[in-house]
């Protein structure tokens, strides 16, 4: 099913009153669609409870440290944070611990040195990487290929998210040794850069040299498809290029429906926002939720795209 297995959020929040309690949201800024939709859903979910949310969102890692410190100083009942620079946030998190302010991390994992000091609602990035590899293997096998060369355009390599996705991807791909990665480039979560690099890699390996491509997010996979089309590749179908991605946006869903993108996976902001909001309510009402929860991720392909169309349409 398309819903996460975590406790249903709809029941959890509506009745409880948390007025007088405060939380600080040190999340991704609204300058990023993922963050914008997360913030929207998160705020809307918690609005009925009357909890006061301080907006400390930003997209700049330096500013984030400062805003986090600010949040600690304001001693809210809980700091909800999504981390931009994993190591840079380690010390501030320690300081929050020393000041006795609880911290809830969502989306990407914290630095291992503070992993035990925080609560977390994490995307399952390894799973997302595994799904991408499954998509590719499934697609290539369906075309009846017994060999295949793959190019990979990753998100910013310095981020744990990227590293975890690659870990899962490589793990699954190792089960099908006939398919192998011939090029892996850092495209910095940048659509334009993804397009440029894809153009060059496709030219480098030629039409027979690439059978599949993995763009780490939908907005990176779509430029690969464009570049491939312009380079004269056929996309999908019986013998075309298999392109997959690993977190879903509306554009990706449309592309799957159009038969171009082979598949993607969830990690949609709405689901995480709901689960995080729910976690906040459970925590503040003393229900002692588990220290760490993982959002259940789903693989999306043409077979089940209808189920996820709504869920993935917000960013």
């Amino acid at each position, binding site marked *: 099913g398309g819903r996460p297995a975590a406790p249903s959020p709809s029941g959890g929040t509506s009745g409880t009153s948390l007025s007088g309690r405060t939380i600080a949201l040190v999340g991704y800024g609204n300058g990023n669609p993922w963050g914008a939709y997360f913030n929207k859903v998160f705020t809307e979910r918690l609005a009925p409870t009357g909890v006061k949310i*301080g907006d400390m969102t930003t997209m700049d890692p*330096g500013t984030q440290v400062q805003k986090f410190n600010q949040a600690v100083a304001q001693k809210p009942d809980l700091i909800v944070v999504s981390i931009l620079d*994993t*190591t840079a946030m*380690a010390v501030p998190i320690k300081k929050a611990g020393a000041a006795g302010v609880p911290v809830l991390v969502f989306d990407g994992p914290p630095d291992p040195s503070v992993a035990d000091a925080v609560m977390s609602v994490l995307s399952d990035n390894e799973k997302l990487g595994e799904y991408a590899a499954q998509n590719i293997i499934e697609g290539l096998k369906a075309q009846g290929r017994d060999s295949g060369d793959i190019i990979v355009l990753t998100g910013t390599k310095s981020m744990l998210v990227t590293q975890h996705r690659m870990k899962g991807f490589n793990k699954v791909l190792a089960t099908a040794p006939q398919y192998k990665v011939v090029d892996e480039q850092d495209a910095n979560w940048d659509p334009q850069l993804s397009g440029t690099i894809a153009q060059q890699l496709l030219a480098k390996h030629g039409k027979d040299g690439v059978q599949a491509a993995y763009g780490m997010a939908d907005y990176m996979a779509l430029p690969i498809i464009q570049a491939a089309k312009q380079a004269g590749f056929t996309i999908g179908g019986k013998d075309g290029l298999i392109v997959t991605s690993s977190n879903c946006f509306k554009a990706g869903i449309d592309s799957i429906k159009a038969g171009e993108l082979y598949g993607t996976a969830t990690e949609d902001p709405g689901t995480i926002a709901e689960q995080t909001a729910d976690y906040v309510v459970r925590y503040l009402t003393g229900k002692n939720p588990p220290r760490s929860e993982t959002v259940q991720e789903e693989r999306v392909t043409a077979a089940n795209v209808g189920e996820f169309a709504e869920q993935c349409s917000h960013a």
Partner: protein
Amino acid sequence: MTGQMTGQMIGRMTRRVIGRMIGRSWGRPEHAMPAISLLLVLAAFACSPLLSGRPLEAFDVYNASQGFAQLGLLALAIGITMIAGEFDLSVAGTYALGGMLAVQTGAHSPVMGVLAAVAAGAAVGAVQGGLIARLRVPSLPVTLATYIALLGLTYTMSGGLSVTYANADATLWVDQQIAGVLSPRSLLTLVAFLLAAVVLGGTKLGRELRAIGGDRRASRVAGVGVDRRIVGIFTLSGTLAALGGALLGYSYASANPDPGLQPLILAIVAALLGGVSLAGGRGAPLGLLAGTLSVALLAQIVAVTALPDFSTQLLYAALLAVIVAVESPGLRQAIERLRARRTGSTAMTPSQGGRP
């Protein structure tokens, strides 16, 4: 009534103190701009509890001073080159390089890391200064190219990954609270500003710096060793930027190969608010200090009042728009033209006195 009067008195006194601090004349933009912006932002800061519903604490000031430390050395570096009529975009690259070097080489001895960073920054600055002075190239394209190259260098050094700094002692030390509102990092930054103020205000270097920015050729003819000074200025800006980056790296316990253009742009905003003009020849370290404090406090106000992030951008845009308006000669002329057109018709009546 009395409140209003004490308010006025306090206003007058701060004005006098700050006026003396920043310079003697109020009429000149290099004095008025930083003073007014700092006063405005301080007032807004003092009023921020009205929005946040929470009294200001020492920690708010501490956090602002951390913001000041993050920006200060960069603003000082770019500000000094701007006074000299140059524009050192590469400080953003030196800043990144300084952080990367300090974190990579300073694992055991933080001092060694800082020294390595500072030496590299100075070397990069000296080479650029040498090129710019000897070949008389405009600094913008040269420093832009250096910025791109340095970015590539930090990328190569770290394989594009953020690098973690494991020396937790250093991290805790640079950010420990001093007197509740300062930290070694912000103190060092403050000292750098004061040192610059003393040196530039008390020796002939300050005069020469502004002369070089005001009229390069004339300074040369007057006997100023312009080329040597320019090499010195770029070396200094590289050093300061690298030091800033190193301290930031320690503070974050990590170094990012690409901190982006944001720090650079904020440093430029701070310098402009500090009364420096891009045309050169104008400004002083204390003005830069006021400008940097303004930017740091502004960021803190946004944090304290939990305003959305984009409102900071709009605020900066508004501040810069004021600077553009104050500084553009054409606007002044347009106003003069308008006034002349208005009085022009009355002046048509004959027999008005001939005094100019």
